[in-house]
């Protein structure tokens, strides 16, 4: 059993590394212990800078480092894999950084978008998944979708090139497809609209074409868009778009 004294010493050293609060009772060389905090933050800051090059540049000199220091002091990173640690930053900002959120309300979205690029670059390989056989055409060929993708729902258009002022002044609902190309294994983003998302999710759920078109039609009527859009046309366009993206294949 670990004695209370040993336990406390270990806790105080770890806590100092995270918070920079040095307990007088920590029995270490006070002239050297700061190296531990420095070395910990070498790793943390390096990882964060690599992961979030766009987010980092929003901040004036020194403020990004201060934010990361506060994050690491206040948020307990529970993942043993250090490269997954940056993922927690957006959660922390949403709950623990009100002032930052006022200045940069789009920051959680931007962090998620930057994180997802790495996440999808590294995610485990997934197999092509078969989808409902009567969906493509009367030819009855077998269709598959590639599951290495994700639809992100964002409150700010952080993927647009216009930059922070534009993002901040255009809150809304934005859909961003992030996917890993089946052959090159590179990660790409693609802006999509809400109706396309609906169709795509329905395809993956295994609904047949007639059902999807009927539901889509109901949706268009409900949204008073039926004068401008035809359900069949939207379905075909989504089908073609995802074929071009290589997220669909017909065999």
């Amino acid at each position, binding site marked *: 059993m670990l004695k209370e004294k040993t336990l406390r010493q270990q*806790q105080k*050293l*770890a806590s100092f590394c995270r918070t920079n609060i040095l307990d007088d009772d920590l029995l270490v060389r006070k002239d050297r212990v700061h190296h531990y905090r420095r*070395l910990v933050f070498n790793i943390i800051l390096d990882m964060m800078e690599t992961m979030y090059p766009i987010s980092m540049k929003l901040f004036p000199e020194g403020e990004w480092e201060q934010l990361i220091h506060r994050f690491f002091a206040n948020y307990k*990173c529970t993942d043993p894999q250090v490269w997954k640690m940056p993922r927690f930053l957006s959660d922390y900002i949403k709950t623990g950084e009100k002032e930052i959120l006022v200045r940069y309300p789009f920051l959680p979205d931007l962090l998620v978008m930057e994180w997802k690029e790495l996440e999808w670059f*590294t995610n485990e390989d997934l197999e092509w998944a078969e989808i409902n056989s009567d969906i493509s055409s009367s030819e009855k060929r077998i269709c598959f979708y590639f599951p290495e993708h994700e639809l992100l729902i964002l409150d700010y258009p952080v993927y647009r090139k216009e930059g922070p002022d534009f993002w901040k002044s255009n809150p809304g609902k934005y859909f961003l497809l992030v996917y890993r190309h089946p052959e090159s294994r590179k990660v790409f983003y693609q802006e999509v609209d809400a109706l396309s998302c609906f169709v795509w999710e329905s395809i993956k759920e295994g609904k047949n074409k007639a059902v999807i078109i009927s539901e889509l039609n109901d949706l268009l009527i409900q949204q008073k868009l039926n004068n401008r859009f035809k359900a069949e046309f939207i379905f075909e366009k989504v089908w073609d778009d995802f074929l071009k993206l290589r997220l669909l294949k017909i065999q």
Partner: protein
Amino acid sequence: MPNAARKNPIDSFKLTSPCLKKQGFFFIGYFMVGLGFRKDFAEEFLEKNFPTPDFIELAPENWIGMGGYWKKILDRAADRFKIFTHGLSLSIGSPDPLDIPYIRKIKKFLDDYQITLYSEHLSYSQCDNAHLYDLLPIPFTEDAVRHIVPRIKTVQDILERPLILENVSYYTPVAAEIPEHEFITAIIRESGCCMLLDVNNVFVNAFNHGYDAHEFILKLPLDKVAYIHIAGHEKVSDDLIIDTHGQDVIPPVYELLDYTLKFIKPVPVLLERDFNIPELDELDNELQMIRNIYSKHFSKAEIC
């Protein structure tokens, strides 16, 4: 004790472990000089087919659960090289409970790639349920020994492999009650695990804490050494060296390797280079230096 009479301690474990026997794990001593496999140079290393270490070492934490590009790289490396592992986040000396699901993930990774050698650090990197992602020194106390020994056994049981624990470099002792060598020896002896002797860490600690590196090495449980590390470091002030793995190995550390090999049986030696990575031919020069020293003590035939 003549070299020929010495047995690799990992063999003793193998003989007492029916699981290892069943899975056909074999003696690791065939592999002499290895190189730390880093993503920074992975692709170039595999493309050029150079340098040609006898094995490579990687941190499972940096590869577990990866698909896509990095999985392809790992698979290519695994096709070409024997892989040894050196974990980062086990935190064997932590006051927190062991992360059993994570240890099971490591086991799966080791099984998937048929890796027999798993080493870790005699340190802690997690406390109060928060990972620090760096190695903190454990207080050298008898209660810490009693705390760590059963944890080692648990890890070995789950992994069905011996745990090989490394002496770490440290910049300040923390509430130490017993000498460092007694602490290390007690843990290795009482748990029955193996030791990874990092000669650079001995050099760094001897300098930082004012003791003799050669004398220190002789106080370690040398019969339990199953693996050796060598690396570069950085002197940051007149009385402090930081163990950076970011510089070339210096002559006194090569000398310490030479000295150490006189007292142990032939075990693999690994060159660690994690930062400030030079051109691959410079790394090859360092591997060659290690080979030259190694071959003074052990011939290839001897360990094959």
